[in-house]
């Protein structure tokens, strides 16, 4: 029997490959990419033809829009940073971080790792990387569609907007990792993470800190594409987002260490 098994071939496993396989063998990667690309392809079309589309459902009420601009075409996509795209990323990341929800799996992992950071870092890196890649793919799709239908947006502003999105999604995954140490189940983790992410913009009503909050990065693409602000304006938000994201990961490791199963 040993001979039969040893004749098999498989790639050597480790915690990094585990996360890669989690994305590859389940619908997670496909779903993330499909959602972002779908909205990237759809939003410019809706922006271009929203007047005509709504004229057919207006019941005699005519809704008029200003002419569509390239900035408006891609901004519709970037709003997914605080909408459906964010929810999908949080749900998928929560599924990876909530290993303590399964007692047998938690024992398997916890009694074998040499430090809980080894459980967190690969999960964070792979999920945040996949979310960022999916977001960029969607942005490229939106860029293509907008150029085709409306006109090309400014390349520099597009790249800056993509950077904002990638950094914000990395922060969202870190918040999800921390939320998974406050709850055990996936649903509860998603609820806590989304509550934290959606509640943060409320603090932005206090103007002096609005530009420092991570949520400033969700509205940054529209301002960057519209020319209202340039990238340096958001450097404080970048710094805070990276710092808070790192703190969330560190807190997740500490909480995992003290949590019993």
């Amino acid at each position, binding site marked *: 029997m040993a001979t039969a098994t040893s004749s098999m071939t498989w790639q050597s*496993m480790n915690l990094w490959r585990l996360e890669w396989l989690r994305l590859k063998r389940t619908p997670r990667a496909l779903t993330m990419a499909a959602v972002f690309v779908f909205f990237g392809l759809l939003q410019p079309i809706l922006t271009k033809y929203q007047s005509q589309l709504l004229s057919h459902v207006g019941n005699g009420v005519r809704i008029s829009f200003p002419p569509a601009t390239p900035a*408006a075409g891609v901004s519709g996509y970037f709003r997914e940073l605080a909408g459906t795209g964010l929810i999908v990323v949080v749900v998928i990341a929560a599924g990876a971080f909530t290993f303590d929800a399964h007692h047998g799996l938690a024992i398997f992992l916890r009694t074998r790792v040499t430090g809980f950071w080894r459980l967190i870092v690969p999960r964070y890196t792979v999920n945040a990387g996949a979310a960022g890649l999916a977001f960029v793919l969607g942005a490229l799709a939106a860029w293509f*569609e907008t150029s085709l239908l409306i006109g090309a947006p400014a390349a520099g502003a597009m790249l800056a907007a993509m950077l904002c999105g990638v950094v914000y999604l990395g922060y969202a995954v870190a918040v999800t990792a921390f939320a998974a140490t406050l709850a055990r189940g996936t649903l509860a983790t998603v609820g806590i993470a989304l509550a934290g992410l959606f509640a943060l913009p409320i603090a932005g009503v206090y103007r002096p800190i609005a530009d420092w909050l991570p949520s400033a990065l969700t509205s940054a693409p529209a301002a960057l594409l519209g020319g209202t602000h340039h990238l340096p304006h958001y450097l404080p938000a970048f710094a805070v987002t990276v710092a808070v994201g790192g703190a969330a990961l560190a807190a997740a490791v500490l909480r995992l260490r003290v949590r019993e199963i």
Partner: protein
Amino acid sequence: MLLTFSYLRLECPGAALAEPKGSSWVKVPPMPNDLPAAVAIGSGKLPPNLALALVPLLVLIVALDVYCLVDLARAKSVRNVPKWVWAIVILFVSAPIGALVYLFVGRDRGHDATHDPAPAGAIIGPGGGEAGTGREAGADGDAGAGREADAAGGAGDGVNTDAEAGLGVGRAAGRPPVDQMPPDCRPIVTTSGLTRDYGGAGLFDVDLVVPRGSIYGLVGPNGAGKTTLLSLLSETRRPDRGTISMHIGRNQIAVCPDVPEFDGWLTAAEVTDLARSLVAPSAGKQAVATALATAGLAGSAGRRVGGFSRGMLQRLGLACALVGEPELLILDEPTSALDPAGRAEMLSLVAAMRGHRTVIFSSHILADVQRIADHVGILRDGRLLYQGATKDLIDTYLEPSWLVRIAGDPEPVAAALAGEPWTTRAEPAGADAIRVDATSLEAGERGIPAVIAGCGARQVSCEPVAADLESAFLALTGAHS
């Protein structure tokens, strides 16, 4: 769909709208009838740009549907409804919603079109599982150091490594302090006053001593504290009071829960290899193959574990535990999900580890414990009522008993036996047999033949009435009730 209506204005035919003073709204001329959307709906023609823009969107949706259909066709099984229903859902429920519903609700994560369908093999003896000997030395250093450093940060409260051993060991009467014993004779695990209180239930003042190389069975009724004790030993929970002294490195301990769980989309070989990479990174793939073969899963190495039965998961849990060649194996109810043949194989495998590996296992099947455990600990209501050699427990808590068959009338012999001071009971048991209970094993074995000979009776047979752990357990727990 997420639409944002910025800068919009409304125009109602026949009603003049008051435009706000200073408004930045732009008055847009009435829409001509030949605009793309109108054309699309009215005449069925699309402007070239819109058609081109829609192509990638349609490709994405169609690709998702095709992927799902191919996945459905390759799947050996699906969840919730039959495959043909999922085909209808994918094809006819508004794209891509039907495909997404299939991916999340219908896809069977356990299926694998390429897996080896061969059934699980039998568990083989440990003689075939010695590959990888000597690799621990290379694996121990980093992993062990890391674990201990991590534990020092808080996870290992109340747990001592070998260097800290000796605390509280003197509580156990009749044995020398652990630090005065030769290394090979030291118990591998000792606990002192170990307490974890769950508000009246839990574990209280447990002084555990597990001899090195022994098979230590932990028995007790439901709620006795067996799993709590194993959780404290494996550091997945922390004690309220007391200490645990492990006289081995942390990386030489393997834990297997009663219901092992793994990611269902991994194969058995990948799961075991993951365990190897975590505890014995220098060991080769041959160690994985050997562990799987030892656990009886050689034929299922390529199967995804999502489709495994609970018994197969227990075997896989054992393979993951063995792949690191641990010195101490902690097994929680290792036979609870196995069929009778699998149970016997598992017990044989564990029994064969005696001497070169220490095993602590819990079970509520006393016959299993009696069969393989040379040491036993009996827990009830969170307290350790007894620990020691299994044989001593049976000898101590059971009056030895024999069924003596003689040729002829048993009444005179029974009367003679009843008159002996070492006899607690002697009475006929049928036409030619006498049931004799004695105060001790030795007294009975010496006295019965002498009395029979003294009566001039002919002895046909003298069989000990089986004394089992269950009887001892009942006697012990009954004595303390």
